[in-house]
Structures are given as C-alpha cells and as structure tokens.
C-alpha cells in the first residue's frame, strides 16, 4: 500500500444484544465479530461511583481460507470506526482491553491492539496502558480507553493505574 493511498474501513453493522455485537467481513471473506461486554461490576470495589465499562473483544467468527487471517490494512481503520460508533452510543463509557496470555505472544497482541487504536485522531481520547504481573510471572497487558471530556476521567484512570501498581505487603 502506498503512503498516500486512502484506506477506507470495511462496512460494519451493529447487531446489538447484551454484548453490543458488531460484525464485518473482509475482502478475504473472513467474518469478524466485535463485542463490548458490560464489565462495570468488575469496578464496583475499586470506585466509589458507578461507571459504564465494557470489555472489548475481537474474534474470527468465520474463516473459510483455512489459514491464519492475513495482514489487512483495512482492519485497523474498521476497528477505529467501530470504537467511534460505540462511543457515540454511550459517550461516558470506559473500554477495557486485555491481551490474551494463553501463550507467550501477549506483547505481539498488545502491539496489534496499539496499531488498531492509533487511528483515533486528535486528543479526544485518553488511553492508559498498564501491566499486571501474576505470581508465576505471567504479564497481563491491559488498556483503558476513555473520552478526555468524561467528567470522571481522572478518578477512573487513577483507580486503573493504582490497581496495576498495587502490591501486597
């Protein structure tokens, strides 16, 4: 792809449901499902006020190629467009993303997620990256995305950072 080539996102549709499902299909006929699962309850013991929090997950729903999905320059733009659409539906929300730690590729997945969201332009959003380390050394890379004008932004980001930095004595 040339630098000056305009990349348009794939068309997406919002299916809704309890997990706020979106879907899109690539040029290779790979169908992706994007979900924003309500996870506000996870924050109940960390914040003194209720928030609308959602965990972002992207999954392959159909892959007729039989191979690993190839790199696709349109996918980051599509993810960014889905994020924007979902933030328009619920502006004062918080989105959380955790990188899968089932194998040792968490760092690669984190880079991929970072690439997806770098297409957010301007200073409208704040992204906070933290790492939680398990007793066995497993690292869980987490990101929180929040609108800059969220009235509870400072308290929410502070709670998120404090949680990651917290250690038992």
């Amino acid at each position: 792809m040339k630098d000056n080539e305009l990349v348009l996102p794939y068309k997406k549709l919002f299916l809704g449901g309890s997990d706020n499902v979106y879907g899109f299909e690539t040029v290779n006929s790979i169908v992706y499902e994007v979900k924003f699962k309500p996870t506000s309850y996870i924050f109940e013991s960390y914040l003194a006020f209720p928030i609308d929090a959602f965990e972002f997950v992207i999954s392959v729903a159909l892959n007729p190629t039989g191979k690993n999905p190839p790199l696709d320059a349109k996918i980051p733009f599509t993810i960014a467009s889905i994020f924007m659409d979902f933030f328009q539906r619920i502006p004062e929300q918080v989105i959380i993303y955790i990188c899968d730690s089932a194998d040792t590729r968490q760092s690669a997945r984190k880079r991929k997620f970072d690439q997806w969201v770098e297409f957010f332009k301007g200073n409208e959003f704040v992204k906070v990256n933290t790492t939680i380390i398990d007793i066995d050394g497993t690292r869980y890379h987490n990101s929180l995305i929040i609108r800059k004008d969220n009235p509870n932004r400072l308290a929410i980001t502070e709670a998120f950072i404090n949680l990651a930095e917290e250690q038992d004595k």
Partner: protein
Amino acid sequence: MIEITVSPNDRPSSKRAIAFAKELMANKKEMMREAKEDFKKPEFQEMLKKLREINER
C-alpha cells in the same frame, strides 16, 4: 489519542489486581469461544446478509 503508559516493576501485582486481570481474561476467552456459535445464529446470519448487500453496492 493521549497515551499514558505505566511501566511495571518486576514484582507480582496484588491479589486483587491479579483477580481483576483473570476476570477480564476469563470473559475474553468466553466471548472468543462464543464467536463461532454466534455466527450460526439467525440474527448474525441476517446481519451478514445485510453486510454483503451493502458491500455489493
């Protein structure tokens, strides 16, 4: 996008933080497992049909 990255130290996080991460991870795995089942549901198939119609325009 304004980005803030908190560098971890190399010591284990608190039990509370580990529980938080594990809960998110469990949710994620469940949702990824569900994706292939969701695809078979009539509402997902209907959405896909609409998507393909839009893409063909």
